C-alpha cells in the first residue's frame, strides 16, 4: 500500500485547483507517473472514496476535496 503517495495525491487534489481540474478531465493520464498500486490507481480513477479510505486515504482529505468530497 502506497499510503504516503495516496495521501500526497489527495492533499494535492484538495489544494491544487489546476491539478484537480486535470484529474477530473483525465484521471488516468494525470496519475500516470504516480507511484500507486493497481488497486489504488483504479480507486482514484473510478473515484471510489470508500476504497481509497480502506486503502489508507485519510478521511479528512477524502471529505474535503472541492467537487469530489465524499461527505
Amino acid at each position: 500500500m502506497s499510503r504516503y503517495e495516496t495521501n500526497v495525491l489527495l492533499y494535492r487534489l484538495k489544494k491544487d485547483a489546476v491539478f484537480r481540474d486535470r484529474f477530473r478531465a483525465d484521471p488516468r493520464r494525470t496519475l500516470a507517473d504516480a507511484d500507486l498500486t493497481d488497486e489504488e490507481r483504479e480507486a482514484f480513477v473510478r473515484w471510489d472514496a470508500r476504497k481509497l479510505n480502506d486503502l489508507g486515504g485519510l478521511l479528512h482529505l477524502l471529505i474535503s476535496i472541492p467537487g469530489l468530497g465524499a461527505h
Partner: protein
Amino acid sequence: MGRIVYAAAMSHVLYPDYYGQNVGPHGRRMVEDLIAVVRDMGRTLVATAPDALVVVADDHLNVFSFDAIPALCVRVGRSVNRMVQDDAIEFDRALDGLPERYPVHEDLANVILEKGMQSGFDFAASWSAPLDHAFLSPVSTLYGDRPVPPLVPFWVNCFVTPQPTAKRCFEAGRHIARVVAEGPWNVAIIATGGLSHFPELSLARVGQSDPVFDRRIVKLMEAGDDDAMTALTAKELHESGSHELLNWLVLLGAVSPARARVRFFGEMGRVDLAALEWDVA
C-alpha cells in the same frame, strides 16, 4: 507571577448550516443551543481580560501536508492568518467573513517553545500555518465582535498515525502551565474538538458517534480523574472517534487538578457536542 485565568473546552464546528444539512433540524437546534452557551462562556472569558489566549486544536489536513506532520506544534510569529480554502467544506465556511489576520502573543509562544526544548518537549514551530475552523469557530463565537486577545495557537496531530499519546498531551499541558506560572501574563486556554465522531476515521462510519464513551469521559473530567484520562489508549480514541480528545488532554494538563463543570452536553448521533469549563480562579 502569571496564572491561567480561564479554561474551557468545546466542540469546534459551531456552524448551524453544517448540522442542518447533514443531520437535520434536530442537529441545527442542538448546535444553536451550544452556540448560545459558548457565547455566554465568552462573557466570562472576556471579563478575565487575558493577556493571551492559548488555543489547542488540531489540523484537518488543511495546514500540514505529508511533507511533515508535527506531533505538537506552536505557532510563533507576530500574526496568524485565517485559512483560505477554495470551495471549502461546510466546516470551514464558518470562517467566511471573519477577520483575515489575528495577533499572536509572540513572547508567550516563544517561551513555550524555548522552555519546551530545555525540558524535553521538542515542539515543532511554525511561522506560517493559518487557522482553520478548529481554532476560529470557537474563538469567534466566544468573542463575537469584541477584540480577540493575542493568540498562541497550539496544534496536536489528532488524525495522522502515529499520534502523540494521551499522557504526552497531558504533560505538554503541564509544561504550558509551568511556563505561565513562571511568566508575567494572565493567560486563558481553550481546547477544541469532539466529542466522538467519525469512528475509526472510516468513511463508512461517518454519521456515528459513541455516546457511552462520551458520557464516561465527561464524568471523568467532572471528577478530575486525570489518571483515567491519561490512560486512554490510541485504540480507544480511534475506535470511538475521539481523536480530538488529545487537544482536551493538553488543557487537562494545564489546569490539573481542577475539575470540569459541564456547560453543555448533547447527543446528536453524528457527533456528540459539549462545552466544559474548569474552575481555575
